[in-house]
């Protein structure tokens, strides 16, 4: 397990967390290279099916991060994201998906250091949890695969 380098995907909004991660760079604060960012206009845009897609493709952990409550560039997108997360977390727990591997956080455009902390803490946590091999054993994944192949 020593050599395990977790693959982590970060889904972030353009206005707060993406800008915050830019600030982390501008401040030259170092963090683990395991996390790769995918930019969304808003956390409200993030469909939770895409988290499933990430797990299915071998992600070991996921970060979802956007503007702090009340700071959303689009005023309410992050509230929808939060609401959806609460519902989906229950659903995912029910289906056996390890929601401990998903970190939901708020990082503003001014919180460069916080972003580095979020990344480092998540990497450390996922490293401890080990690779997410279980996902593809879960029945739901087969269903997803079917759905996706139909979709394409």
């Amino acid at each position, binding site marked *: 397990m020593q050599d395990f380098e977790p693959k982590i995907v970060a889904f972030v909004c353009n206005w707060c967390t993406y800008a915050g991660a830019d600030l982390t760079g501008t401040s030259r604060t*170092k*963090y*683990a290279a395991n996390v790769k960012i995918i930019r969304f206009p808003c956390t409200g845009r993030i469909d939770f099916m895409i988290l499933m897609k990430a797990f299915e493709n071998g992600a070991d952990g996921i970060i979802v991060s956007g503007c702090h409550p009340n700071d959303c560039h689009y005023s309410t997108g992050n509230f929808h994201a939060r609401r959806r997360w609460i519902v989906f977390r229950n659903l995912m727990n029910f289906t056996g998906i390890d929601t401990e591997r998903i970190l939901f956080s708020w990082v503003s455009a001014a919180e460069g250091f916080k972003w*580095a902390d979020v990344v*480092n803490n998540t990497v450390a946590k996922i490293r401890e949890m080990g690779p997410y091999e279980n996902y593809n054993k879960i029945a739901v994944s087969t269903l997803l695969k079917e759905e996706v192949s139909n979709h394409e």
Partner: protein
Amino acid sequence: MSASHDQHHPMTLSGELRMDTGVIINKCYQCGKCSAGCPLSSEMDYPPSLVMRMLQTDDPKNYDKLLKSMTIWLCVSCEMCLTRCPMEIDIPRLMDNLRQKSVRAKKTNPQAKKIIAFHKSFLDSINYTGRLYEMGMVVDYKMRTGAMTQDVMIAPKMFVKGKLNPIPEIIKGRKKIAEIFNRVQNNKEVKL
């Protein structure tokens, strides 16, 4: 990766106090509201806000002055400072800690002898009987301080009023209390 976080820093005084008490010294911005409201500050050698400043300097000399000060023994834990502090700094908790450190370092102010003697007599009384035996405690205190004649005038009146109990109340669990005293003393804290 995050090298800067791992670097070993020598512990500052404020860091040490933060670890021991949770109080963050550097929050204090010297507004002086504590000193203004403290009932004892006029008698203290260092009023509370000055104590905070001295700790902030991280200077061992200032720390030493505080351990030897009267201030820490004059503080009656009335909590007025905490109540009005804009930064909600728990000065009373800090004072408790400094008192304990002062005793441990054997630096207590000679003028505080009476106050410390009172506390010790008080605790001794609990240790022996489980409760405070007022008369016994006062006698013990007088033995410690030599203040034999203090308050002798009111004692007879108190007797008459039924306020002084000549016989100590000793609780059944006296041994349990003694055990408690033993255990906390073994836990590296102040030797009482």
